[in-house]
């Protein structure tokens, strides 16, 4: 299945883009998906990362579905 992955700020700089599409095995959970993303973009390992699925902070067990919107970003710094 295909899902899109969004990057912001430091993670967008680390991967050199703001959005990619990745292929995941059916039945993958959030942990699997984010492990896959980090192995594709090892630069991300330099950062403290947070993960979201469909605009919510992700539980590691959350099953990912075709068409989901994933996001990988650093601990937030607004305000």
């Amino acid at each position, binding site marked *: 299945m295909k899902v899109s992955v969004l990057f*912001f700020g430091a993670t967008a700089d680390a991967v050199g883009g703001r959005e990619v599409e990745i292929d995941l095995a059916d039945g993958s959970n959030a942990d699997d998906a984010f492990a896959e993303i980090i192995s594709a973009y090892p630069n991300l390992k330099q950062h403290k990362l*947070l993960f979201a699925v469909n605009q*919510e*902070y992700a539980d590691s067990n959350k099953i990912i579905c075709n068409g989901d919107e994933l996001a990988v970003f*650093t*601990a937030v*710094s*607004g305000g």
Partner: protein
Amino acid sequence: MNQNKVDFIELTTESLDIGAIARRVVPANCGAIVTLDGFVRQFTKGRETLYLVYEGYEPMALKEMEKLIEAAKAQFQIENVGIVHRLGRLEIGETSVVISVAAPHRRAAFEACEWLIKELKRTVPIWKKEVYADGETWIEGDKSEMMNDE
């Protein structure tokens, strides 16, 4: 006045009018508004910032801000909350975030406003880049803080 319809959350690249934002949260039974005006600091730990760039994951940021308002209203005696966060490039001294809390009595408004900014800085997906004379860096928050409270 309809007391339940005046909470608001917004993201904007326009400059923020603090007084106007504060006035939007006032219902008739309130006696105090506490408003935080967060603005761009020139010196951080002795290093001079030229300007900031804020970026947000906008749909998620709006959802998280909405959750904060719900949670604040559940734990403090307050009536209405407005949160507006600016995105894009901000110069020194420009307002980046305004949080206004209206309450029947001031104490709850002070406490809720402090709680809201602390949580916003922990959970709402917005990031700032500090630009210096000799470089720039995306500021990363404290992840351990983020994970502990879930």
